[in-house]
């Protein structure tokens, strides 16, 4: 009980800090809200001192941030979140309406994600149900490619191909169920691929647990064992699922724009750019509440699924000695990636020739040219180093932070939810407010969110691992906490979390590029990959190669990272015990072995 109260308090402290941070944002970044509001209302209007003074007087800006904040918080008590600075409408109904739209979109996207995740795990489930997993290595190239797909690219392709050319489903608007399909797919495919990968990572462990062996020995149908295995693995994923729920609700800006959906993502983006603080505060607070609810539901579901076992420490470790990773697949992916980079290096990524724009791939331009007639192959290749180094560095930092904070779930849990719920643009603005607009700011802004899913994953896995029987045994033998951490917990948790981090590497490259419009990060004409995707997106239909090439290398990077990560293991914990003759792999370090067939 006391624990819950502390967690609740911590959550509240974070929420208050965030709302206050937003309230002070214009004063911290020294960006006059009167100016941004004016520009959002009318881009053509000249910012004369009289006009700005009028707006300031209207909004009461002269009274200072604290007065405004106090006023807003005061109104919040009776459900009044003030009036928008931009257009004077009441904030509460507007935000609730946008939230409704976004929640619906998210719900349908989750269905799409569930289907995708099922497809990703289908092979493992099929083999597992037939006890044929032994010795098979994880696939995952396909899901990694899906996970690396930028949402806006999927969205534009779906809108153009399915919506406009085939005319099967409406390409834009939000007027009824048939309008939900395409946007949900665009959001659900990458999310489902990530979740499916994470699940696929855990499933083999569940299939080799004693109960599964016993059930199989008793002749329980494989289908049921498979279903129970999924159930067994879900608690490790639920926190991440919760993060996706919140992330898709507030962060689906690109998809909302392409399909013209009046959701919360666009509302908060517009409010963040215009510094329409009442809307921004209300939107963020709503997302925080949603995040808290999602986290609560995830905890409840975990409890329902594995509660007694968690309490009694009667779980077995889902971590199992992995079979040696495939050697060839990462070599193929990595080789391809290297080949593309090597081929393009001698070419000039900046030489533009407007007479040769949007040319299809040919001998002279193997990947075609972009809107300014630049060679796409050269740009992809020259952008590789910058993109990869920065993304890899951020990923590494995020992994370290994520694992460290994941070890302290009570501190990090609410922090993870909070950080994840904040719209990325707002977070970038907040980071800029604190760190200034230096060269490290975009990396900081992206890194500030990137650790969150990793921490959630670590915490969820740790919780299960701590409840494993072999830990009780080791503890009984007198092992210290440090020993347990070093020799039992980290070895079990690190490999899947690292694979998770690698899976998100392409996403980090994309996130970096999405901040460019704030003047953060790479500026044109730099061939950074995210920037390549963004600048060629308007031409996606006329010159698909210009977006497909960077998307393909990004996907290749994802596939390479994941297939190579199959080999991520804890050095000191090589597979030791294997029953050589049987087709069954025994779970490591489980004291009692239940009937082997």
């Amino acid at each position, binding site marked *: 009980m006391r624990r819950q109260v502390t967690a609740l308090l911590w959550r509240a402290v974070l929420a208050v800090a965030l709302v206050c941070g937003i309230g002070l944002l214009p004063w911290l970044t020294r960006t006059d809200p009167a100016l941004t509001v004016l*520009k959002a209302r009318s881009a053509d209007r000249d*910012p004369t001192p*009289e006009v700005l003074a009028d707006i300031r007087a209207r909004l009461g800006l002269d009274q200072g941030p604290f007065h405004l904040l106090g006023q807003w918080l005061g109104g919040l008590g009776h459900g009044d979140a003030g009036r928008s600075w*931009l257009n*004077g*409408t009441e904030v509460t109904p507007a935000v609730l309406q946008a939230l409704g739209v976004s929640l619906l979109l998210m719900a349908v996207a989750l269905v799409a994600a569930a289907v995708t995740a099922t497809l990703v795990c289908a092979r493992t489930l099929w083999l597992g149900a037939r006890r044929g997993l032994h010795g098979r290595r994880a696939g995952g190239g396909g899901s990694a490619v899906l996970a690396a797909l930028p949402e806006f690219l999927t969205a534009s392709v779906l809108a153009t191909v399915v919506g406009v050319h085939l005319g099967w489903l409406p390409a834009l*608007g939000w007027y009824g169920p048939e309008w939900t399909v395409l946007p949900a797919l665009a959001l659900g495919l990458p999310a489902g691929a990530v979740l499916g990968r994470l699940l696929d990572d855990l499933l083999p462990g569940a299939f080799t647990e004693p109960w599964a062996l016993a059930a199989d020995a008793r002749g329980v149908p494989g289908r049921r064992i498979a279903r129970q295995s999924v159930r067994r693995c879900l608690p490790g994923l639920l926190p991440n699922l919760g993060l996706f729920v919140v992330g898709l609700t507030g962060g689906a800006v690109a998809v909302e724009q392409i399909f013209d959906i009046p959701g919360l993502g666009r509302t908060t983006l517009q409010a963040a*750019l215009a510094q329409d603080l009442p809307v921004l505060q209300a939107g963020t607070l709503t997302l925080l509440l949603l995040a808290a609810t999602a986290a609560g539901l995830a905890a409840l579901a975990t409890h329902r699924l594995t509660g007694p076992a968690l309490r009694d420490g009667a779980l077995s470790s889902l971590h199992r000695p992995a079979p040696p990773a495939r050697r060839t697949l990462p070599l193929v992916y990595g080789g391809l990636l290297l080949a593309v980079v090597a081929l393009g290096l001698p070419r000039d990524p900046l030489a533009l020739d407007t*007479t040769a724009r949007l040319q299809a791939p040919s001998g002279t331009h193997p990947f075609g040219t972009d809107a300014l007639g630049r060679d796409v192959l050269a740009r992809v290749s020259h952008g590789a180093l910058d993109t990869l180094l920065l993304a890899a560095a951020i990923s590494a930092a995020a992994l370290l932070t994520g694992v460290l904070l994941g070890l302290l779930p009570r501190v990090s849990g609410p922090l993870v939810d909070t950080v994840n719920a904040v719209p990325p643009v707002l977070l970038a603005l907040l980071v800029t407010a604190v760190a200034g607009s230096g060269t490290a700011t975009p990396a900081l802004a992206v890194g500030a969110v990137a650790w969150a899913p990793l921490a959630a994953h670590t915490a969820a896995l740790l919780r299960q691992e701590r409840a494993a029987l072999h830990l009780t045994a080791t503890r009984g033998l007198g092992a210290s906490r440090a020993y347990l951490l070093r020799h039992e917990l980290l070895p079990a948790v690190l490999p899947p979390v690292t694979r998770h981090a690698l899976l998100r590497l392409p996403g980090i490259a994309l996130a970096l590029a999405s901040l460019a419009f704030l003047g953060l990060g790479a500026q044109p004409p730099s061939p950074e990959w995210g920037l390549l995707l963004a600048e060629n997106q*308007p031409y996606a239909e006329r010159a698909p190669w210009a977006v497909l090439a960077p998307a393909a290398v990004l996907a290749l990077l994802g596939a390479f990272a994941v297939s190579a990560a199959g080999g991520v293991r804890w050095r000191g914990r090589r597979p030791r015990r294997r029953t050589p003759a049987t087709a069954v792999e025994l779970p490591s370090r489980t004291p009692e072995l239940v009937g082997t067939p």
Partner: protein
Amino acid sequence: MTTVRRRHILGSLLLAPLLTACFASGGGDSAGDAKDGTRLRVALAFPPAENLSPYGADATILSRLGVTEGLTALDANGAAAPALAASWRRENDRTWLFTLREATFQDGSEVTPKAVAAALTHATEAKPAPAALAGVTLTAQAAGTAVRITTGAPDPVLPLRLSSPSLGVLSPKAYDAKGAADPVGTATGPFELTKVNGSTSATLARFDDYWDGRAQASGVDVRFIADGTARASALRTGEVDVAEAVPVAQAATLDKNTRKETATTRTTSLLLNARSGPFKDPGLRAAARAAVDTSALAQGVYEGHADPGAGIYGPALTWAEGKRQQPAGRAKAGAPNGARITLATYDNRPELPEVAQVLKQQLEKAGFKVALEVREYSRLESDALEGKFDAFVLARNTLVDTGDPVAVLAGDYTCDGGFNIAQLCDKDVDGAVAKAEGIADTAKRQDAAMTAEAAILGTDAVVPLVHQRIITGVGGSVSGVLLDPYERTLLGTGTRR
């Protein structure tokens, strides 16, 4: 099992209304009586930012949709034409008399001089003041069948000023005690606003008692679609009949017959910082001007949907070309010798970063070292106004809200100008602009404006790059769309499908 199913049915019954609340409300029923004209479906680019307040930028939306009208309008030559005022005359330096025509407000009341005077008075009291009234004091009074307007200082362009969409006339019912104005059902145009769904859509009905005859379309369903690609798709899938402002990148995806191009008053220029940095030297400014190849931009970036820059005023101002004077007193081009410059622009208009990249190459060929800075406009403007960049690519509407060509020169290129990104402060320019500002006669004012333009171009602080054309997507069966270089009209009484 049955209980579960029953619970499901119950659940979905409860969910249904909840779900409908989560969808956007549509633009309305688009079926119409064939005899009575069909409804038009229009996609506009800029969602209302201020709930369609008539005093801000949303006024343009109202004017384009044929909802509001002012006392005057702009004709094709940029001169004031009669609208709600049938005629006008200048009584003395500061007083004008506008005689009204017989018209009715959409709420049924008559357009009386008193109502018009009250509407204008409300506009002068709005905070912030409408752009067309910036820096102007004005009082309006009813005088018989006319409205007498007195300005604080002599205002030779008052009839032009009154054509601004932000000075549209609404019935007395539109104004509340706080000074806010509601254009729903209170304007005088051929179409009446009946419903506004936030910033997603709006519904218009035909106003049968319009003074200039009944509109052919029975109503309009408006959707506000900010994304250019989405607007183009809406037209291609037949979801809308007219799509405003199709981006250049999407133009090629549209059928040639559906693509209507209009020259606009928007000029994209390269502004060179004449106060500090390398471009303080007129020789380097001249070198930069000489290095720029505008036809590469018009063809290469705008794909021919723009005209190469000829001056500050583009071909949309039809009088400008014939009156253009050669810039005199230009400096001789100096040698850049690797001078480092920052070139800034914004990405709200997707073509501008491309223009900047092409310029970068052209300038580097001439010997400059160029660093680009691309941001969202509102994060860039104050730095630009403070002169933090050496060069700036700006797309500027040269006719601003007043419809007066001189206003943009005064604002952008004089020492006291409020929007002087080029940081230009030149005696000759100031003199030429001041002279133009004092002339009332339209033709002579235009002549003086062209003299001032030549003086400004002579300093090389501004290099006109391209004059944009706006591309309006018009479905095959639609006719009578009003393609307006001043971007103030779109739908009129003759628009139908």
